[in-house]
C-alpha cells in the first residue's frame, strides 16, 4: 500500500516534468499539442475514494497550470476527467468486476481494453481543455479537429510511454 503511494508520487512528479519540459514545447503539424499528464489520474487505483480522486485531479491540473501560465484551465479539464473516471470504469468493467486492489494497467487489462479506456478519457479531457481555452464556439469544427488529432497523438504517446516504462515492472 505504502509502496503504491510512493510510486504514485514519483509517477506524478515524472509526468508533470515530462509534460512541462518536453511535451509543452511540442507542436505537431502546427496545431497538435499532446498532453500525457492525465495518465496519472488514469493509473490511480480503481477503488480510490472519489473525493481524493477529485482532489488529486485538481492538484495535477493546477501543477501544469502554474508551469504554463494557464491558471485554472488544466485544473478544470483534469477535474472533469476525475469526475468522469468512475463512470468510465463502470462502463468498461469486465463481467466479474475489478479486483479489490487493482489499478487499471496495460498488461493486466489487455491492450484493447486499455485503448478504449485511454481514448474515452483523453478525448473527454482534451474536449474540455480545448474548448475552455478557446472559450467560444465560432471556431467549433476547427477546435474539434484539434481535439481529435491531439487526442490520437496523446494516446499514442501514452502507449509508447507505458511500453517503455511500465513493461519493465512486469518482468521484475
Amino acid at each position, binding site marked *: 500500500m505504502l509502496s503504491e503511494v510512493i510510486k504514485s508520487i514519483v509517477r506524478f512528479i515524472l509526468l508533470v516534468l515530462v509534460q512541462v*519540459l518536453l511535451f*509543452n*514545447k*511540442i*507542436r505537431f503539424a*502546427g*496545431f497538435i*499539442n499532446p498532453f500525457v499528464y492525465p495518465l496519472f489520474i488514469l493509473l490511480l487505483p480503481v477503488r480510490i475514494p*472519489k*473525493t481524493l480522486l*477529485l482532489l488529486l485531479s*485538481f492538484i495535477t*491540473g*493546477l501543477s501544469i*497550470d*502554474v*508551469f*504554463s*501560465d*494557464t*491558471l*485554472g*484551465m488544466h*485544473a*478544470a479539464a483534469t*477535474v*472533469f476527467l*476525475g*469526475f468522469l473516471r468512475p463512470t468510465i470504469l463502470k462502463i468498461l468493467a469486465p463481467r466479474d468486476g475489478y479486483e479489490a486492489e487493482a489499478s487499471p494497467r496495460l498488461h493486466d487489462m489487455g491492450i484493447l481494453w486499455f485503448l478504449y479506456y485511454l481514448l474515452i478519457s483523453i478525448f473527454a479531457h482534451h474536449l474540455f481543455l480545448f474548448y*475552455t*481555452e*478557446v472559450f467560444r464556439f465560432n471556431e467549433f469544427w476547427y477546435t474539434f479537429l484539434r481535439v481529435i488529432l491531439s487526442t490520437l497523438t496523446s494516446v499514442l504517446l501514452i502507449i509508447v510511454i507505458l511500453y517503455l516504462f511500465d513493461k519493465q515492472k512486469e518482468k521484475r
Partner: protein
Amino acid sequence: MRNLFLFLSRHYFSILFLLMEALCFYLIAQNNSYHNAGMLNSANQVVATMYDGVSKVTDYLNLAENNRRLAEENAQLRAMIPESHFDTTLVKSTVQDSLHNQQYSYIEARVINNSTNRRNNYLTLNRGADAGITPEMGVITGHGIIGIVKDVSAHYCTVISFLNTQSKVSVRFKKNNYNGSMIWDSDNGPTEATVIDIPRHVPFKIGDTLVTTAYSAYYPEGIMVGTVKEYFLDPGSNSYQIILKLSAGFNDVSYVYVINNLLKNERKKLEDNLKDAK
C-alpha cells in the same frame, strides 16, 4: 431539512465536482485580468528557478544563431553612432544637446521559458523587480517586438507574448505614415501576424517593412515588426488585410530587452484625464 441532507449526501460527488469547477473558472477569470500578484504563475521562485536551470542547458542549442543575431545587431548599431557618419558641417557644435532627453532605457534579460503553440502565449524572463522591471513594460529583441511584461517577482517576470489572441499593436509602413493594427490569432502560427485597417488607397507591395508607431505607450516608435508577406482586400470593407511575416523569431528567442519608458507615467496620467472627462 432532512431531505436536504439526504440530497447532499446522495449527490455530494457531483456537488463537489461543480464547486471545484467553479473554483477553476474563477481562477481562469482572475488570470485573464492584467495583473495578478498571486504566486501561481511561472514567475514564482520554484518554477522560475527550474526553467532557469533548464534554459541554461538548452540555450547552447541556439548559440550559433544567437551570436549571429547579436553580431548583426552590433553592426546595425555601429552604423548609427556619430563616428560612422561623414561630417558635413565645418564647425562641430559644442552645445550640450538639450533637444534629446533620454526617454527609453533598456534592460537586458534572458528568456527562460517560452511558449508559441497556444492561443495565449507567455514568456518568463530572468529579470524582476530587482532589475527595475515593473508590469506593462514593453519587451523587444534586436529584430522586433516580443510582448508586454505581466507579472513581476523579485528576480523573474512573466511576459504576455505578442502571440496572444488579445494582442493589438499599432503599426505603420516604414516608408510612409499610413498605419493599421497588428493582431494575432493561433491560425497565424508563430511566424506570422495579421494587419487590419489599412485603407484601400495606401500604396505598398510585398516585402515592405512595417514598424511600430508612436501611439503605443509600450514600444518606442520605429521598432521593426515584420514585412508584408501577402495581402488581400477585406471582403465587405474598404481596407486591406495584410499577412505579415514577423521579424522577431518567437520560436528560438533567448535574449531580449525590456523597455523602460521614462515618460510613461506622465503620458498615462495625461491620457487618463481624457477618459475621466468622457
